[in-house]
């Protein structure tokens, strides 16, 4: 059989398996972000938001909606890959792929696509919830699509690297808890970085999540604090670097071969 055909079928198989997995356990994968999002909108949007007033010229609930959607997308893209690949390692069924005639880049691409699809699926659900509370509009469809794809790919890659290194279940919650959550919360989801003192504003620009949230907010609201081109360049660089790193780890057999 021609290699390309084998790789194509293998890739489709991994993606199908990943999608089946997160759809099968939808109460753990799709439902929680929907519930959290509804609570965020009720508490921060309606109850607190009305007292906060305007932010960057928008009502508070409208301002935070893009960030909240992005937060769900990021968390779920990451969570999908880290839990699925670590689960495959833990139960040893990753070996099903390692013995097969498929290269590591196909395995990586399959898992990343699974993460992207879960991120996007959750994004659709939380956007639908957001529309119950806010008047979302679309400023730039292309920006929205591009930033969603790049962000989900990046966070899926992050999940893959975490899963490769993880040796026990605790290891797959350390990075999300102690690194991602602070970066996301400090990434301009709930506030405009213009509100920060100059020093902390400069520090915030070192946080790549600021660029993702800001670019996505631009796609919806048409307002941005960062240069859109710079945002895409930074995210693309991160994707290339983390993608190369994840592939190198798989090629070396780190965490999966003795």
């Amino acid at each position, binding site marked *: 059989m021609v290699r390309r055909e*084998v790789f194509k079928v293998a890739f489709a198989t991994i993606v199908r398996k990943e999608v089946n997995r997160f759809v099968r356990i939808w109460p753990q994968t799709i439902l929680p972000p929907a519930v959290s999002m509804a609570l965020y909108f009720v508490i921060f949007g309606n109850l607190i938001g009305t007292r906060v007033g305007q932010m960057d010229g928008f009502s508070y609930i409208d301002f935070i909606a893009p960030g909240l959607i992005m937060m769900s997308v990021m968390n779920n893209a990451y969570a999908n890959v880290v839990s699925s690949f670590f689960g495959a390692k833990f139960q040893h069924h990753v070996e099903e792929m390692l013995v*097969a005639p498929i290269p590591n880049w196909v395995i990586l691409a399959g898992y990343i696509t699974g993460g992207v699809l879960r991120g996007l699926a959750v994004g659709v659900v939380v956007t639908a919830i957001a529309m119950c509370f806010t008047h979302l509009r679309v400023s730039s469809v292309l920006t929205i699509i591009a930033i969603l794809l790049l962000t989900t790919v990046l966070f899926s890659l992050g999940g893959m690297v975490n899963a490769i290194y993880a040796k026990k279940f605790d290891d797959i919650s350390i990075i999300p808890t102690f690194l991602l959550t602070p970066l996301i919360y400090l990434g301009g989801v709930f506030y405009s970085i213009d509100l920060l003192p100059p020093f902390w504003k400069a520090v915030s620009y070192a946080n790549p999540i600021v660029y993702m949230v800001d670019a996505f907010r631009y796609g919806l609201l048409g307002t941005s604090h960062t240069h859109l081109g710079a945002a895409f360049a930074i995210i693309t660089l991160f994707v290339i670097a983390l993608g190369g790193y994840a592939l190198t780890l798989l090629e070396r057999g780190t965490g999966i071969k003795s």
Partner: protein
Amino acid sequence: MNALEILGLEKVYANGTHALHGINLQVAEGDFFALLGPNGAGKSTTIGIVSSLVKKTAGTIRVFGHDLTQNWFEARSLLGIVPQEINFSQFETSLEIILNQAGYYGLPRPLAMERAEKYLTQLGLWERRNDLSRTLSGGFKRRLMIARALVHEPKLLILDEPTAGVDVELRRSMWTFLRDMNRGGTTIVLTTHYLEEAESLCQHVAIIDHGRIIERTTIKELLATLPTETFVLDLDTVMESPPALPQYALRMRDRTTLEVDLARGQDMNDLFINLTHSNVRIRSMRNKSNRLEELFLSRVNRNPEPEKGNGQA
């Protein structure tokens, strides 16, 4: 052509354990080959490297002439692996597991479904195709691993302790299945602790100990080197003690079963004549099944572990 060729295979684990010391092994196409060895001898490490699950330190592996490193696509396509430990997703059904594995080997969905039905049926799992794998019994899980390894119809099937922990009936049915596979042209390599299994199934055997191949021969030749062979005689008469025949090593297993060690050169006809003269009537006779075991132990015991750090013998 050799189905499997292993040349100078070395493995040193990160903790310094020197698991394989330059193993050389050839398995001819169509063979049913047993790799025997005590725990920790290097069987699973060898299988792990052939399966691409363990990284080799040095050496060459060829599968039907395809180098596993250079031509990994061709080599892996020809290989089917049944590992020792259960290694499928506990949350997928038997059918999903088989279809996924078929997909990893590039089988289009309709063909994958056809093969899944074929092998799940042959291994008695078709009725349970929609059961989650974690709900299957140990025996069914073993069969599922074999079905999974066969779905792409490999030319070389490697089984690492395939019948470990399964009951006698299932073991026998798996033997029949594997014999049929071998007759159908599939080369089979198995590691096993059940030496009766190797004796019953295999044509050739290699014994590995302390990471070295210490014997590589046919089962028949190996058994021919036995200094004695033990036979079990079921008697028609009840006896309290063995007949007085000093030229034979006789002992009662129970009051109607006699065991005799027949040294090489001793004649079976003479034994029967002598027993008849002693008024012992024999209803049936069989080999004692652990004869290969005795031989295996004698080989392994005379190969003491080299001191750590020693090079290749």
